[in-house]
């Protein structure tokens, strides 16, 4: 009875998983080697590339294991975990969202903080508007998009604004950082405040401009990860955390532009 319910919920979680071809890899040939297990990881959208890149390595090291991801905004993921969505690991993009899950008693033990990210101004290649810092974004000559203040990247942007003593006049306050980035890659805004890793992920479609307030108090982003309480795959979840904080994880994170913690 319980396992049937769990099966349905797991299937639902899989349906929620965005654009990940996790289903394809659960081939029959793996099932003979070891009992088939599925590790479900809810991870912040900014981790999409790194986690997808590390998935085959982890699966190879743990025969019979299929990793699948539920990528989304950290707030949404934390809410889902609080509401009891069956997932084994929660990896958010801010301590605050992790605390939401912790306070609800949904995280086993202490989460590990393993990576950090900082803000950058994304502009068109060649920086046609000559944007040098936050101040140069103010005014009608330059249009910019930033994150909504309720999401982590929006809070970081606000902290940077406070540190610089400027108030930006964005044309859009978007619900997630990738939407901000898309507005820059499609050239509908002159600039967007995103993370270093987002700029790197575009492979040169946008250029990043560093600014001093990116290292201000509250402007940085740290990435905690923890095993969800009551997970049937807590051991596998711990192994994923060791893997992501180990040499292979470090290499992938560094390559994507994350700073290691």
């Amino acid at each position, binding site marked *: 009875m319980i396992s049937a319910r769990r099966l349905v919920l797991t299937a639902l979680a899989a349906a929620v998983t965005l654009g990940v071809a996790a289903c394809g890899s659960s081939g029959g040939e793996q099932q003979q080697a070891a009992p088939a297990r599925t590790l479900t990881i809810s991870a912040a959208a900014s981790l999409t590339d790194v986690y997808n890149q590390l998935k085959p390595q982890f699966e190879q090291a743990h025969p019979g294991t299929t990793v699948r991801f539920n990528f989304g*905004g950290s*707030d*949404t993921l934390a*809410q889902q975990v609080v509401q009891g969505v069956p997932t084994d690991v929660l990896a958010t993009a801010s301590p605050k969202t992790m605390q939401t899950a912790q306070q609800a008693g949904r995280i086993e033990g202490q989460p590990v903080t393993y990576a950090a990210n900082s803000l950058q101004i994304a502009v068109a290649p060649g920086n046609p508007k000559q944007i040098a810092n936050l101040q140069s974004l103010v005014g009608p000559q330059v*249009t910019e*998009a930033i994150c*909504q203040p*309720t*999401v982590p990247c929006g809070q970081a942007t606000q902290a940077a604004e406070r540190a610089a003593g400027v108030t930006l006049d*964005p*044309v*859009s*306050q*978007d*619900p997630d950082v990738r*939407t901000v980035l898309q*507005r820059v890659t*499609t*050239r*509908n*805004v002159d600039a967007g405040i995103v993370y270093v890793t987002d700029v790197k992920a575009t492979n040169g479609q946008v250029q990043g401009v560093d600014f001093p307030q990116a290292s201000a108090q509250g402007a940085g982003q740290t990435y905690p990860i923890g095993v969800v309480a009551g997970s049937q795959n807590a051991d596998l979840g711990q192994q994923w955390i060791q893997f992501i904080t180990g040499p292979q994880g470090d290499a992938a994170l560094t390559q994507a532009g994350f700073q290691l913690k």
Partner: protein
Amino acid sequence: MTRAVTRTGRGSRGSTVSLALPWPVWVPAVVAFGLIAVPVAGLIVRTDWPNFAALVTTDAALDALWLSLKTGLTSTALCLVLGGPLALVLARSNIPGLPFLRSVVLLPLVLPPVVGGLTLLFLLGRTGPLGQLLNAWFGITVPFSTEAVVIAQTFVAMPFLVVSLEGALRTAGERYEVVAATLGASPLTALRRVTIPVVLPGLISGSVLAFARALGEFGATIAFAGNLQGTTQTLPLLIYIQSQNDLDGAVAMSLVLVVVAVLVIVATRTRDVSGVR
């Protein structure tokens, strides 16, 4: 349980015909109604009533409600002014390729709204072909403006009006217009005095559907118009953003959206029944 309609038959014996609904209709009908009504009822249960007034009267909420009403009504008017004639062409003209045109008109129903918004962005964005012209000639930038919200809403709502109206036009047929023409009415007079009054119920229900769709529009708006309080942040956008960190506020504002929609539907329903025929 069953509804029996009795009327005098046309048969020579004057027998009565019972038009009861066959029993297999009822179970799925109840399930269908429940599927819609139960989650919405859950919304009412989940609402934080003691703080309801405070939650729905924040600056952001009032701005969003006002913007939603304003843009929703404007989009509906545009759907009427542009979609009405389109429905006439689809129903009454015999230009070649009508089935193809009709399927194109239905596309916004099939496309995920976000994709609809992106296609608008590709066309009207700063680097889009039309967007570049508008910018060069008139200095107009469409994305991130209230006009962009209206365009996105009109895009997604248009098929609802066109399909309803085209159906009404086809059901009504052309016989009254033929009579009007034989009595000397010009095509324009026939349209104004005969066609429009005849299809008025269809026009009203189509407008209500279009308004409801425009009111709930989210994906195309956020992709094409962005999200800025007072300018492009409609109620569904605010609800989405609130739902990420303040569920109570999101639920309360959703309820406001439901109430607005129900009010509009009820108001037009009663007019529909008592006013026309």
